[in-house]
């Protein structure tokens, strides 16, 4: 190769270096954006997920629903069951990874009683709060109350 050819390549060398670097950046960005786009396509509205998960609290006897014999009373809370132990049997997240899913704080407004799931941490920023008008059965007594369910969304990635 003569001097002119070497000079031509020498002049283009910085260009190719920059070009190669830009191509690498481009492909990384492309892959990242593709991943973000796919996640957006498959995102479930958190309101829907919360609504369906929290159905269990007042509807099934394994959570707080009152039952008499084989008859279950959805929407009626058994006061005797409204405790942490029953809540953890009803809904318990993984001890280590549980912060990456929904956690809840349940409050009966009438009595002020509160229960929290195992990975719920106090915070004031609950945006997905659910409200349920319920009946509370305490022995033979029945009274109306409101069950407020505060929702903690996923923490971290």
């Amino acid at each position, binding site marked *: 190769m003569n001097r002119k050819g070497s000079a031509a*390549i020498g002049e283009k060398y910085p260009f190719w270096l920059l070009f190669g670097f830009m191509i690498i950046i481009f492909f990384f960005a492309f892959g990242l954006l593709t991943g973000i786009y*796919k996640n957006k396509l*498959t995102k479930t509205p958190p309101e829907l997920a919360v609504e369906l*998960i929290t*159905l*269990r609290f007042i509807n099934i006897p*394994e*959570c707080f629903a009152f039952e008499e014999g084989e008859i279950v009373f959805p929407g009626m809370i058994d006061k005797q069951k409204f405790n942490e132990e029953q809540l953890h049997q009803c*809904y318990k*997240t993984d001890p280590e990874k549980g912060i990456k899913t929904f956690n809840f704080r349940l409050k009966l407004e009438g009595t002020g009683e509160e229960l929290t799931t195992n990975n719920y941490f106090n915070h004031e920023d609950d945006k997905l709060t659910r409200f349920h008008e319920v009946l509370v059965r305490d022995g033979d007594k029945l009274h109306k109350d409101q069950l407020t369910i505060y929702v903690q969304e996923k923490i971290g990635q």
Partner: protein
Amino acid sequence: MDEDIYLIVGELAAIALVGVLIFGAVFAITNSDTVVRKVHAKNIGLMINTLVGLPGDALVKYPDDVSDFSFVLTTKGVSVFKEGEPDCSLVTSSCEVEYFDLPESYKAEGTLLSKEKLCLQKTEQNIILRGCP
């Protein structure tokens, strides 16, 4: 003169290579079924949470043709994959898994391999994934 031609050919080859790589990537993405798997997994997870939240027994049919995929349901979650693919527990697997938290007394199980209709059946505290009757 020759060197200039070599340079031009080299530049054209590099641009052509980049173009082929981009088209290849776009083609792979548009033909990928990753999104479909994820949608199926999430939908089944939501259906299971709904079944858990309803008192009594129930049978629900998944409203889509799922013959392209296979499913495995456990108490921890549901996996969506294609027959013949690597095991879901492997990092290299293209399995989609949706996790959920069932009440302690509940059990979930079942498999469906490349069948058109998927059903979820709740019987007392058991949730079973199977083909539809």
